[in-house]
């Protein structure tokens, strides 16, 4: 269709329009893709418009980001994809990216004449689904439709998973952790109820959707709606702001808890990023706080979580300060960034959104995780995706954050992650992982505090099983991080206490574990979590169940490799750690879990962060690893032959190599492949 130069909204009207692209043009697919192009350079704008028209796309162009944003808001379902320049006078392209992601959840492609790694990485961390270097060739534009399809596909997948997970949750009886109300169901008086509710919600959305389209109806987070949301969150208090309560406070008809949950996650990411930004404007960093992107969700962690983090010694003082500042809405360090959220609600979203779009690695994990339902024995509400995320998150905070948020959120996160991961390039993965790491770290403590014992439980359980063959425990914890589903939570809760006790002994038994700093343990936990999620070493008794799963899941070995691959791609640095550290950390994390549930993992992260960079952590990790490797029998189990540890390692190595430049940024270089025990 040739809409003509300068025409603005061409289509539509709403739901029908939103799904129109895919369904109407089956024969000419992907013709009719509705693209919004934003670039302040008139030359480029004109050229892009022409190229896109030649691709038979519907093009709307705008030379100002503000105009583009209002176009998008007026016509929520009027566009399929947005292409935006990075450097624009009226608004930074990344801001626009965040807004779009947060409010409209459309795939956004960034472009620039700047091809430096930093900028590309920024695109990744902010959630861009692709990054084009100018001059853009028409060939590059021909395939942009893939991003639209991919996103829709993942949205659907998430939904499906949610539904299946919900069913599982219903089966379990779990002690409802206080913080469960936001997520899946288990708490509220019955898994069944929540499951039903969730299903109903999903059904509703499904109905609204045109069957032919892959697109799910999106909740449009208008400025007003967001204001309501923020009011509700502030009213509840960041640490108590759970989707269910927020939903109740907002009292918006048609809004589902899932919507709120995913939005909350984005919001937290955004807040965290704000605090992170104040510390490290450059972003991409491995330090927890320093990572702007990683700072998302900080606000949600204030108070209790921060203190918990700080208490564990994991959270650097500065980070804590930043977090608190963020939480309080003040700029923690350098200044104004924290205040941003207060000032500009939209920014929050923008932050969150990019964060949410995590690296492909996660995506992969999700995929692989789907197969594995680690918590087989344990009613895992976590969808495989969650597991995957979880694994990923062990490296990245986001992962933790995901866990924390419970099922609904997790699911959404998963979706986001998946989207992001898919969208992101390899380097982005690393970044994402970092971010997630940061996030997860922050989020972990809160989770443990609030509602999501899952993660912590999972790990401790795993640890326990390993050491003492406390299979039961292990199961819980291991999975918990992965599955945010409420069932997990319950499980983890139980586990936590048990684990706690057990974990310590385990630590000592592991010999080197006890001597290890909490940090290391955490790191290990993280790793181990990750490891576990992958495909659990045969060493764990609990894995028996997993084994059963194996066939369906990843086929552990494959999972492992998948995981690694994804890991690698996401976090170059973390990869190094993961293979070895995972095992070790997993155990340590499990031990720690006893305390807070998730905290161990977060601690791992935070401790990692403390070191300031991946490198320092890496050193610790490596050290720990060494200890653990020798000590723990589990270690071997962690790298079970079945996993083909070598495969993992090589996968990791390969990944590392491939993401070489990214690694550098993360500071993982130091230990990269050298330190990985193979």
């Amino acid at each position, binding site marked *: 269709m*040739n809409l003509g130069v300068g025409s603005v909204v061409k289509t539509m009207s709403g739901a029908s329009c939103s799904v129109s692209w895919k369904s109407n043009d089956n024969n000419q697919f992907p013709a009719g893709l509705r693209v919004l192009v934003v670039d*302040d*350079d*008139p*030359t*480029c704008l*004109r*050229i892009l418009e*022409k*190229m896109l028209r*030649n691709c038979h796309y519907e093009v709307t162009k705008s030379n100002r980001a503000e105009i583009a944003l209002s176009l998008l808001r007026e016509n929520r379902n009027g566009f399929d994809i947005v292409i935006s*320049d990075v*450097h624009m006078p009226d608004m930074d392209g990344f801001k626009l990216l965040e807004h779009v992601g947060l409010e409209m959840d459309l795939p956004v492609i960034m472009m*620039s*004449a*700047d091809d430096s790694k930093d900028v590309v990485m920024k695109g990744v961390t902010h959630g861009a689904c692709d990054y084009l270097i*100018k*001059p*853009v*060739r*028409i060939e590059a534009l021909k395939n942009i439709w893939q991003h639209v399809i991919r996103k829709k596909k993942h949205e659907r997948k998430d939904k499906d998973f949610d539904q299946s997970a919900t069913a599982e949750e219903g089966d379990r009886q779990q002690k409802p952790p206080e913080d469960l109300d936001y997520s899946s169901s288990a708490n509220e008086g019955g898994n069944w109820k929540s499951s039903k509710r969730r299903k109903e919600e999903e059904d509703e959305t499904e109905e609204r959707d045109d069957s032919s389209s892959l697109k799910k109806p999106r909740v449009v987070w208008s400025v007003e709606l967001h204001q309501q949301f923020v009011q509700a969150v502030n009213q509840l208090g960041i640490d108590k702001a759970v989707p269910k309560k927020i939903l109740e406070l907002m009292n918006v008809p048609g809004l589902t808890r899932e919507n709120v949950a995913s939005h909350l996650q984005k919001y937290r990411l955004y807040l965290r990023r704000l605090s992170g930004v104040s510390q490290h404007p450059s972003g991409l960093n491995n330090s927890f706080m320093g990572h702007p992107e990683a700072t998302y969700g900080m606000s949600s962690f204030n108070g209790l979580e921060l203190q918990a983090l700080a208490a564990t010694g994991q959270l650097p003082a500065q980070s804590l300060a930043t977090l608190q500042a963020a939480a309080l809405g003040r700029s923690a360090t350098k200044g104004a960034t924290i205040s941003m959220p207060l000032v500009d609600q939209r920014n929050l979203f923008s932050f969150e959104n990019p964060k949410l779009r995590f690296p492909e690695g996660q995506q992969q994990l999700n995929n692989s995780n789907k197969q594995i339902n680690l918590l087989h024995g344990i009613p895992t509400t976590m969808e495989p995706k969650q597991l995957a995320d979880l694994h990923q998150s062990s490296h990245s905070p986001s992962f933790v954050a995901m866990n924390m948020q419970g099922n609904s959120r997790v699911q959404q996160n998963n979706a986001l992650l998946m989207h992001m991961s898919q969208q992101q390039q390899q380097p982005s993965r690393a970044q994402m992982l970092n971010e997630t790491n940061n996030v997860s770290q922050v989020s972990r403590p809160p989770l443990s505090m609030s509602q999501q014992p899952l993660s912590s439980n999972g790990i401790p359980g795993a640890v326990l099983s390993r050491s003492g063959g406390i299979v039961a425990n292990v199961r819980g914890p291991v999975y918990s991080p992965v599955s945010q589903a409420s069932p997990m939570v319950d499980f983890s809760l139980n586990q936590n206490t048990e684990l706690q006790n057990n974990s310590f002994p385990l630590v000592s038994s592991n010999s080197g574990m006890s001597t290890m700093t909490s940090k290391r343990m955490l790191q290990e936990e993280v790793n181990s979590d990750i490891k576990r999620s992958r495909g659990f070493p045969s060493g764990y008794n609990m894995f028996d169940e997993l084994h059963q799963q194996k066939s369906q899941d990843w086929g552990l070995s494959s999972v492992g490799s998948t995981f690694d691959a994804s890991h690698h791609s996401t976090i170059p640095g973390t990869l190094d750690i993961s293979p070895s550290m995972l095992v070790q950390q997993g155990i340590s994390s499990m031990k720690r879990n006893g305390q807070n549930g998730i905290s161990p993992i977060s601690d791992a992260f935070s401790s990692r962060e403390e070191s300031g960079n991946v490198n320092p952590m890496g050193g610790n990790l490596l050290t720990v690893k060494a200890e653990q490797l020798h000590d723990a029998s589990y270690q071997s189990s962690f790298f079970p032959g079945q996993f083909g540890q070598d495969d993992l390692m090589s996968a990791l190595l390969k990944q590392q190599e491939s993401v070489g430049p990214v690694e550098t940024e993360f500071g993982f270089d130091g230990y990269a492949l050298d330190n990985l025990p193979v």
Partner: protein
Amino acid sequence: MEVGQLQRSFIEYISSLFNEGFLDAQFSQLQQLQDESNPDFVVEVVSLFFEDSERLLNDLTMALDQPNVDFKQVDAHVHQLKGSSSSVGAQRVKNCCVPFRNVCEEQNTEGCLRCLQQIKQEYLLVKNKLQTLFELEQQIVAAGGAIPMMQ
């Protein structure tokens, strides 16, 4: 002049522009984008480029003329110039932008002024060449011929 001759001159001329590095493959992309629905696409885009570039070069001149040069601003302008010149295929102009950004980073005013001078020269050169090219095209069309497409 008869059409055939004009066309040959055109081909010769445009080939030289490519050979001498004034234009690169991106320009060919623009030519390929031109079709019946947009018969003047190349001219249109190049005109936009001229306008934009002249504005940018003016801004750059002013920015570098300040007692306290705002190098960030200068860099932003150069970055944009790089983007637009690369989009139309003005290769030599684009190539001038890279060292320009380097001296900006170094906050070297002298270096910037030199780069600005150089980029202005390249810009005027390519502008001249393209205008000549378009005139040739017009002559061909006026003589009833078709503009030969380059591979």
